């Protein structure tokens, strides 16, 4: 049985989500992936961050593939392995071959893994005392192995034993059966999702639904040799959104437990910063691309239209629906978010520590900074460290706060972005 994985993604227009194996998948770039992961890693002396980074991925990998195998009626071990390999590369995680694994685990090696490959190409080598960076793949594949062999969640342990970021020629992991179960929980799947129509504002001719649908049809295909997705000038992944949401929530909770409530502003600011990184690199790359020029730019009459145009793209990235019912200005933007992926995932947990999505605060203020402070609407800019520091580090130009949050009992998510 050969399955074209790209055709298995289910687009839910009224949720702004793209789902595979019951897991909403979201598009992000390697800059965001590394910023978030490295920020968590910085806390490794305070608590074992591997438990969060690997354990969360393992939960998701296990739930996703159990569901996908059941949906497709795949029972044969070889076919299950082929499906995992195909999903892995279709999502831009890289290339793996699982033939050498069995129900006891085994060794897995690849020269192409998203986190390791892009880190090695971007940053200096990691110091010897640090482990490799392929946490997500480690957990995701451990969960996949459990699903392939119908093992319970948490029955496979794992270790990364080589990494491109440490001078090794490949990434290598070891997987092994445990004589106890790791304390993991099944993924929250589609979480406490909500639905809405993408609102078409009357004050712009930017065709929101048309843009969303055009972007959904764009091929975000991996390179056939590397399994990496290069687009818009960055390297993309289609990662289960619950991974980002839950590692953020769990990191915040762990830090509160270990350090105390005084650490909250520090962690929240780091998550806000992750939104800036994402807006700058991914969305900045999108707004300076041939795809943007063809699909969106013909409708951009005024600077505000850039806000509406980039908002129309977000549902196609699987992030949820951005509703704009009041015109934005250079000083103020107040988008309402429907089924924002971070809120939807975290809201499915009992008593979450986060009461809003700090990533959204950073993302939407980052969009405003790019458009108004960098004047993207009238000039092409160089997306480099100098511009990033100018927009986000030498005094932030915009600040986002939640006026209403589903994570704090509100009916919806409303962000207010104001010029500072």
């Amino acid at each position, binding site marked *: 049985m050969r399955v074209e994985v790209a055709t298995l993604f289910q687009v839910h227009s009224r949720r702004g989500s793209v789902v595979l194996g019951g897991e909403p998948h979201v598009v992000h770039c*390697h*800059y965001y992936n590394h910023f978030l992961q490295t920020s968590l890693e910085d806390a490794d002396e305070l608590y074992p961050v591997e438990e969060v980074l690997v354990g969360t991925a393992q939960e998701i990998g296990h739930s996703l593939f159990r569901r996908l195998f059941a949906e497709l009626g795949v029972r044969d071990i070889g076919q299950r392995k082929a499906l995992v390999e195909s999903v892995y590369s279709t999502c831009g995680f890289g290339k793996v071959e699982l033939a050498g694994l069995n129900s006891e685990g085994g060794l897995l090696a690849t020269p192409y893994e998203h986190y390791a490959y*892009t880190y090695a*190409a*971007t940053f200096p080598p990691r110091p010897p005392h640090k482990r490799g960076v392929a946490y997500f793949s480690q957990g995701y594949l451990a969960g996949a192995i459990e699903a392939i062999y119908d093992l319970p969640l948490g029955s496979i342990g794992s270790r990364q034993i080589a990494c491109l970021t440490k001078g090794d020629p490949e990434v290598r992991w070891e997987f092994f059966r445990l004589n106890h179960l790791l304390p993991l929980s099944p993924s929250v799947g589609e979480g406490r999702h909500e639905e809405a129509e993408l609102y078409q504002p009357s004050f712009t001719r930017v065709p929101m639904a*048309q843009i969303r649908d*055009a972007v959904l049809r*764009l*091929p975000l295909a991996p*390179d056939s*040799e*590397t399994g990496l997705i*290069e687009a818009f*000038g*960055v*390297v993309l992944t289609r990662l289960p959104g619950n991974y980002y949401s839950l590692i953020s929530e769990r990191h915040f909770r762990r830090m509160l437990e270990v350090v105390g409530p005084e650490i909250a502003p520090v962690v929240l600011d780091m998550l806000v910063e992750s939104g800036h990184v994402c807006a700058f*690199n991914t969305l*900045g*790359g999108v707004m*300076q*691309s*041939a*795809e943007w*020029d*063809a*699909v969106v*730019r*013909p409708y951009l009459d005024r600077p505000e239209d850039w806000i509406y145009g980039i908002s129309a793209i977000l549902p196609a990235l699987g992030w949820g629906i951005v509703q704009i019912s009041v015109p934005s200005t250079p000083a103020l933007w107040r988008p309402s978010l429907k089924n924002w992926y971070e809120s939807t995932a975290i809201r499915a947990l009992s008593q979450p520590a986060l009461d809003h999505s700090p990533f959204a605060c950073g993302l939407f203020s980052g969009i405003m900074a790019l458009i108004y402070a960098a004047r993207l609407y009238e000039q*092409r*800019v*160089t*997306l*480099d460290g100098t511009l990033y520091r100018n927009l986000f580090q030498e005094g932030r130009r915009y600040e986002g706060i939640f006026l209403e949050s589903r994570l704090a009992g509100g009916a919806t998510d409303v962000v207010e972005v104001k010029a500072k």
Partner: protein
Amino acid sequence: MKALIEYRQIQICAWRVKYLIRLEKPLETRAWQALADSWPGSTLQLIPLYEGRVLYTLGLAERKGTLTGSSVSPDLYAVLVRAEAAQLLRELVAKLESLL
């Protein structure tokens, strides 16, 4: 008026450099095809969008980079492998100038 207005770097990403190449008007399909024909091992992909618009992606051989553009914009984007970016950009610009 020059057919090729300017080219400049707009992003550096891992092993790639992204350049903006501004033309006077959008490249037509036959110019894209000619560009592909002049670059051994390259592959041209045409992606139809709505209202007759077309997105063009020229993939250079040996994953050295891509050139993207559309039927509605005079702007092209070259994302080139960092180690050879300057040389590849020069070749690309020379080929474009010979076509325009």
